[in-house]
């Protein structure tokens, strides 16, 4: 005769199973073994990875930075991302507010500009001439319009009577001064910063006119030996398995797209007037002949945001140790076209591709992407460090040539190996 089981036995076992399951989950969590699987992307949200306002636009970064105290002490940083960031992170919001709130722009003499560089303040050199509104937008400015329509690479935020003033120098060597709405006392912050950092011998070339006659007077010279990391790179498009992830970015309808293979191994995806070509060399090229929207007039900040969106969702995801910085934003009023470029930077040094192309070259007609050329490179910095001659020695060497521009230490990526070289950004000419 079969023994009849008590009816509670069924739910009793269910309860035990449930408790054991919950206990298993808690223990799995406690081991921490699967945190990386549960939070696969969290590095993207971190403070250390946030350079500028990721909600608005791609960053533009200062390459050289210097702070000066009331008694003329100076601390600066070049070719060292950590050191540049440490200063920039402390004063970038003040620069953003100064750019955003600048008023009553007045042209000043170069002597006044030089005086400003020697005053209590912070000097920023972005290396590339960029619209002031675009830099301010990257620093979180809400308004798209500023009273400043200029472009510049060199800025100086100084403490003056009545508050903060902003100075900048245009590529035509015209200096401007503007009042800002900043009521701060930055002198104290600068003094405290310098008290925790040894003063390094960083000067502007104009402060040593006899030592370096003829050199760009506002070139920041350090007598310290630059130390940089070895760098390797690979073609980040080589292992691309799903090109369709980029279709939506370029507004290509994946259901009706036509794929063809070219003799050079590249794949071409065509949908109507849009074409995306992916080359085995690592180049992605998008072209479009769509006219709708080409009459829309964009503000530079809007154009920069569209371009940044493309770069963030393509190159930056595969760039490894590299960041991307805006290096050009120009506007042709006659054709209503923006030309926007980005370059790779690693540890505070620019990476030049030996084919002469920028990392990203984006053409916007109205609000339509008409041409996008992207070079997918993934960089890995090694722990091995190398040194170069201090830049004042290279500056002397550079003076032998026709240009007065100071030389800048950059990486040159020739698609096989990467070497550090001295170059002039203006003409991308290499030395040594």
């Amino acid at each position, binding site marked *: 005769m079969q023994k009849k089981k008590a009816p509670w036995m069924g739910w009793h076992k*269910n309860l*035990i199973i449930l408790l*054991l399951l919950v206990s298993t989950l808690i223990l799995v969590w*406690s081991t921490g073994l699967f945190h990386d699987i549960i939070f696969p992307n969290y590095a993207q949200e*971190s403070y250390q990875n946030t350079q500028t306002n990721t909600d608005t636009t791609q960053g533009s970064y200062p390459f050289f930075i210097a702070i000066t105290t009331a008694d003329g002490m100076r601390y600066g940083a070049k070719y060292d991302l950590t050191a540049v960031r440490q200063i920039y992170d402390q004063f970038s919001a003040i620069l953003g507010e100064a750019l955003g*709130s600048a008023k009553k722009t007045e042209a000043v003499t170069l002597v006044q500009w030089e005086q400003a560089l020697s005053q209590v303040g912070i000097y920023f050199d972005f290396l590339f001439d960029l619209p002031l509104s675009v830099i301010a937008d990257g620093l979180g400015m809400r308004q798209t319009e500023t009273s400043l329509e200029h472009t510049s690479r060199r800025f100086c935020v100084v403490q003056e009577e009545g508050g903060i003033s902003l100075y900048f120098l245009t590529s035509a060597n015209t200096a401007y001064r503007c009042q800002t*709405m900043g009521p701060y006392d930055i002198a104290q912050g600068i003094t405290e910063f310098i008290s925790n950092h040894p003063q390094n011998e960083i000067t502007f070339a104009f402060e040593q006119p006899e030592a370096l006659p003829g050199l760009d007077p506002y070139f920041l010279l350090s007598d310290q030996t630059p130390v940089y990391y070895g760098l390797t790179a690979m073609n980040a498009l080589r292992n691309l398995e799903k090109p369709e992830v980029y279709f939506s970015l370029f507004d290509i309808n994946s259901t009706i797209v036509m794929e063809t293979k070219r003799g050079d191994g590249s794949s071409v995806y065509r949908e109507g007037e849009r074409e995306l070509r992916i080359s085995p060399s690592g180049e992605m090229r998008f072209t479009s002949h769509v006219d709708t929207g080409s009459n829309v007039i964009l503000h530079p900040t809007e154009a920069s945001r569209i371009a940044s969106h493309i770069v963030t969702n393509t190159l930056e995801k595969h760039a490894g140790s590299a960041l991307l910085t805006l290096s050009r934003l120009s506007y042709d009023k006659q054709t209503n076209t923006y030309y926007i470029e980005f370059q790779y930077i690693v540890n505070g040094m620019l990476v030049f591709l030996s084919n002469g192309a920028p990392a990203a070259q984006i053409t916007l007609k109205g609000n339509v992407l008409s041409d996008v050329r992207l070079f997918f490179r993934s960089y890995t910095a090694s722990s091995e460090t190398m040194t170069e001659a201090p830049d004042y020695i290279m500056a002397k060497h550079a003076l032998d040539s026709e240009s007065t521009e100071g030389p800048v230490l950059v990486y040159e990526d020739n698609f096989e190996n990467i070497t550090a070289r001295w170059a002039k950004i203006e003409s991308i000419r290499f030395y040594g």
Partner: protein
Amino acid sequence: MDNEKLKNFFIVLFSIVNVFLLLIVIMDRTESKAAQSKLLANLTEVYAQNDVKINDLSRVPEKKMPVYRVTRNLEKEHAIAYSILGPNLDTQEENGNIQYYRNEVGYGQFHGTGYFEIHFYGDGLEISATPEDTAVDMFSLFGLKTDVSQLEKNQEQTTLSVTASGSFRHTPLFNNTITCLFEGNYLTAISGYRLFDLVEESSGDLPLNLQTVLLRFLSIVTANDSEKQTVENIQQGYMISHKILDTEWMIPVWKITANGKAYYLNGLSGKQESL
């Protein structure tokens, strides 16, 4: 297999998995504790070799200090201005993310850098309590919870300034202070840096542990100071970083006091900070 057998199978399976995981957790924690004790002992020895005196490190509390991202919310900011200046506020937005609030009582300006100042017209705002109690009430409107014993006071001629340092969930904010100015029975101004409004934890930043921070500190203090050093106190806190307008980052910071001097070490980079 019938239902009962299946249930028995799962009970046995989950029990084995539980025992296995429990063993991993226990072993992990035991190893971690032993390693930490060993590290602290080694560290104390390294400090002694470098002629830097440090007390029992095992007594230094080390709590989890995540990085927080704090964003500005204009509605909440308006509510703060309203609660201080009162109704009929005229709001004006200026370029550079600066908000102005005005009414017949006074005016205030709030910046995207966290800085703010509020001024009252005429003699100021008449107070019914002591300046200290009034300051505590005002600070609480900015989310800064403090009591009278923690205030810093400074009397200069007829002006009394009352300052409080910020805190967040019982952890000090080392570079966040708000000051109230009083003239007799009148509050004339409030200014300082406020903590923004919407807090979210950033999960991607990994703060350094105490041992790493102390090693960094040792290299700083031995490089800069030749006199014999004694570490008197170690405290965890936050510093507010404004990389961009309208957003603040709360970065873990270790405040290490040696020979009466306070050193602030960034809990992410280990670098010395100026606050």
